[in-house]
């Protein structure tokens, strides 16, 4: 299905979710095609839970998540969701060791028959995903030999192999040094444009999101405080409200804000 850039692909309406206490309250968010939406919020504000609701892994107590053209996620089987929505989880783990190539090829699963026998086409798609994430040369290496940054890229490669229209990324840049963070965010922004994906990136790196995201959603205690363009949303008042800290926000020449917390 070809989509216009900016067309809403995934939409959450009034989601509610609780474990023991309410975690998500009246959560509404839209993800447009061809754009990176960044999500910023303090620890425990429910970002990961929100992502799991958006991928249909968790069932909301109220509200719906609608995939344009396919309807509410509640009515779709997991396979049907996985063809449309890919997610890079926060901590992917490998129990029985396998090669980088085979790990990435798991992303093809939702497109395969029950026994999951892959075709040459699936290999090609997987190879392309490994190329994009610059992992081709580790293709035959066991996953356990990869560094932290390479493992993160591999999780992204697996998600790309899913060939979905929506990409949800949870804290991909956590534990990475600054050059890896920039490299990965640049990659995600490029792929989002090239494949016209609706991408949501959760991160604590405000400046990284301010640079690479088109839109930003601020999340506080299970609610979306504000959603809009970076320039609209990333400002001193919002950040102070969110983190209880003072910030200096400086507009750079390209119209992107640069954010620095005032520590004393």
């Amino acid at each position, binding site marked *: 299905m070809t989509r216009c850039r900016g067309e809403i692909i995934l939409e959450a309406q009034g989601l509610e979710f609780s474990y023991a206490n309410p975690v998500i309250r009246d959560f509404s968010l839209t993800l447009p095609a061809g754009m990176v939406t960044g999500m910023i919020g303090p620890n425990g504000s429910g970002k990961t839970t929100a992502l799991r609701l958006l991928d249909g892994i968790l069932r909301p107590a109220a509200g719906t998540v609608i995939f344009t053209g396919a309807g509410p996620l509640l009515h779709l089987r997991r*396979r049907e969701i996985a063809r449309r929505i890919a997610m890079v989880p926060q901590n992917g783990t490998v129990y029985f060791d396998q090669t980088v190539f085979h790990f990435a090829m798991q992303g093809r699963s939702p497109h395969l028959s029950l026994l999951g*026998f*892959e075709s040459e086409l699936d290999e090609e798609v997987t190879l392309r995903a490994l190329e994009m994430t610059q992992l081709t040369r580790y293709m035959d290496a066991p996953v356990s030999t990869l560094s932290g940054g390479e493992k993160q890229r591999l999780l992204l490669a697996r998600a790309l192999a899913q060939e979905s229209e929506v990409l949800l990324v949870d804290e991909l840049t956590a534990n990475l040094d600054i050059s890896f963070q920039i490299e990965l965010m640049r990659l995600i922004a490029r792929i989002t444009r090239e494949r016209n994906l609706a991408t949501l990136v959760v991160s604590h790196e405000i400046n990284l999101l301010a640079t690479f995201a088109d839109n930003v959603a601020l999340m506080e205690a299970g609610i979306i405080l504000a959603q809009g363009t970076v320039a609209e949303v990333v400002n001193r008042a919002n950040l102070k409200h969110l983190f209880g800290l003072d910030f200096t926000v400086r507009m750079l020449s390209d119209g992107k804000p640069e954010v620095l917390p005032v520590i004393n």
Partner: protein
Amino acid sequence: MNRLSRTRIIGTSLSLLALWILAALVSINVGSVRIPLLTSLRLVKSRLLGEALDGSPLAVILFSVRLPRIFLASLVGAALAAAGAAFQSLLRNPLADPYVLGVSTGASMGTIVYSIFAASLGFTAGASFLYARPAAAFLGAALTVAAVYAVGGGSMRAGEGSQRLLLAGIVLASFISSINVFLLTSTNQADLRGIFYWLIGDLSRPVDASILVVTIVVLAGFAVLYLFSHSLNLIAMGETSALILGVEVARVKAGVYLVASLMTGAVVSVGGPIAYIGLICPHLARMLFGSDNRILLPAVFVFGAIFTLLADTLARSLFSPTELPVGVITALCGAPLFIYLLHRRGGKV
């Protein structure tokens, strides 16, 4: 690269089947009465051609004792090994197997309760008798699984959940073991030695018609497990990952648990709770054929048959004419082998 091809799966399975036939030929030959290979082949040929065997004593031993026992050992081994491999993938824990999870012990409780009350319930012969013992074993296995889940399944977080399930399995298995011994000693069983053997895992009892039901359950169960093989591969990577990649995790978990328990219950009802097969065979097979369940499950199914067949052949021939319970041999080989594996792979099994 090298994606897994159907040819490789079929080739591996056929090679292992050939090895199994070889092991069976050796096993026919060995025992308190030796049946030379050529003689046994000639007898089988005559039987297949419908020729009269004239009550030859070797023919009686071959067809009523040895071949049924070879079949039984293979069936029991195949089922336990496949169930073990499935449990290990499902719980993402290399220590999971029907024995550790308490499924085998639960099945033996079902069998014991059945054997105590069968006569008074009127299950002595006929069709109901065929199903009743395996069904009782399955019921025992299923109840134990439910109890293990109730005790250990409270937290469903990926890693922690499976640890708790295993611990719950170990605790419940020892608890049920005591119940088993209590039941057996308090009900005046005539054949205490036989029961003691059976509790360790013993294939020396004569094969009765219930083997047909057990065979059907094991083969059908294996077919269903195989349909879950790719989903199990993904679940082995973590439940969240599997969900993201489109697996109906809850449905697969329930299905695999049910089927693996059914298979375990069926074979425990005839062979007792034989230890280590479900633990060792999947690890050896994984080292040889990789961890992809699409090739691992068929490989381990035949591998378990070969392993158990050889173990049982040893059990009945080492101190011939006295027979050991096969569980003694599997534990004697299994425990050191397991320790070796732990060491060799630096604790990463």
